[in-house]
């Protein structure tokens, strides 16, 4: 499970060493077989008070879907039991030793301090999935200009200037409504989190994702507040809460 050198073959060479994240040196890795089918066998490479979670990559291997899932599963599983600094997907070093000489050794103090800051907290994602027809109906009902344009454009060619204008107004109204809802969620859940931000927004499939860094001791309170928000937004969006996760959205820069 931890191990140093277990994956190093007799020749001692792998074309690359993939890095998942940084953890405190005393971290016990989970039983990977129980974490998920995508996960191979990441191991710890320790240096001083910190360690990198690494895995060898074969020469003919390129990163695919399984690797992407594994990256999330490995880091989220570690995050359930202790702090972890997620490293960007696709990061690797040519030599195993380089992980120490070029990452862990020079950055030990900075990385250890990041881990201290993250200790006792986990990331949660709140995702609003809008029901578009409901949202559009609300927008039409709430904006006379849009309602009128909609009537006018019904008999017009699809790409008429009025249609473009209508679409533009609707897009802006959708964005405004999503921004308003985001602000409301951040205002409600922000006080029961250590940090919060908009993580992603996709206009065209109607999802807004908000990220929160939640202290363990406030988790129950946070979850109760999230439940309340879900009820408040239920007329236009389904609300999902995912977590605890590794703090992908709250990594300070080196």
């Amino acid at each position: 499970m931890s191990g140093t050198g277990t994956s190093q073959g007799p020749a001692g060479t792998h074309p690359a060493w993939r890095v998942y994240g940084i953890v405190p040196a005393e971290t016990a890795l989970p039983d990977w077989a129980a974490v998920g089918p995508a996960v191979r066998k990441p191991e710890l490479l320790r240096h001083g008070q910190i360690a990198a979670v690494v895995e060898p990559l074969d020469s003919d291997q390129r990163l695919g879907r399984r690797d992407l899932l594994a990256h999330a599963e490995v880091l989220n599983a570690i995050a359930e039991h202790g702090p972890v600094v997620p490293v960007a997907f696709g990061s690797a070093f040519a030599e195993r030793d380089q992980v120490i000489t070029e990452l862990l050794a020079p950055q030990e103090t900075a990385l250890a301090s990041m881990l201290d800051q993250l200790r006792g907290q986990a990331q949660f994602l709140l995702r609003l999935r809008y029901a578009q027809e409901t949202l559009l109906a609300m927008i039409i009902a709430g904006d006379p200009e849009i309602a009128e344009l909609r009537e006018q454009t019904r008999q017009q060619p699809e790409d008429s200037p009025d249609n473009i204008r209508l679409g533009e107004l609707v897009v802006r109204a959708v964005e405004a409504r999503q921004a308003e809802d985001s602000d409301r969620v951040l205002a409600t859940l922000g006080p029961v989190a250590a940090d919060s931000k908009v993580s992603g927004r996709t206009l065209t499939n109607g999802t807004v994702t908000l990220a929160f860094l939640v202290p363990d001791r406030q988790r129950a309170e946070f979850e109760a507040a999230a439940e309340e928000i879900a009820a408040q937004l239920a007329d236009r969006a389904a609300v999902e809460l995912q977590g605890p996760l590794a703090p992908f959205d709250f990594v300070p820069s080196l």
Partner: protein
Amino acid sequence: MTVTTQSRRQDGGYLDRPRSGSLADVIEIILDKGLVLDAYVRVSLVGIEILTIDARIVIASVDTYLRFAEATNRLDLYEKGGKDLGELAGDTTEKGARGKTSGAIEGIKQAFSSDDEEEEDEPEEEPETERSSSGHRRRSSSRRSSSS
């Protein structure tokens, strides 16, 4: 109805608590996130295959407007909702100040989304198989995450 398909709910609650996300969600969660190591210690061979996959052509905003206009016009106000934005407005991506990075990321997302579930090492053309057993709805491969 597609927006409420996932997972268990707490009794009487409105909040969904999915155990794990769909692939699209995972992409949104981790891609372009996390500690970025110094460029010179990063080995390019790992990411290069992904990055060189053709970036998706970003659809101009006028097209997005037209799709929304159409969705708005098509809407029967007396009918209660069902479809989500992706289905109605189509698979569009906003154009904007996203720059070439956005294109590359779109490319990556599409590459992953069109990858075969089992054989991640093969470039696959075949349509994705929905992970319906876990109740996850396949969503657009053009999800764009933006930080703000």
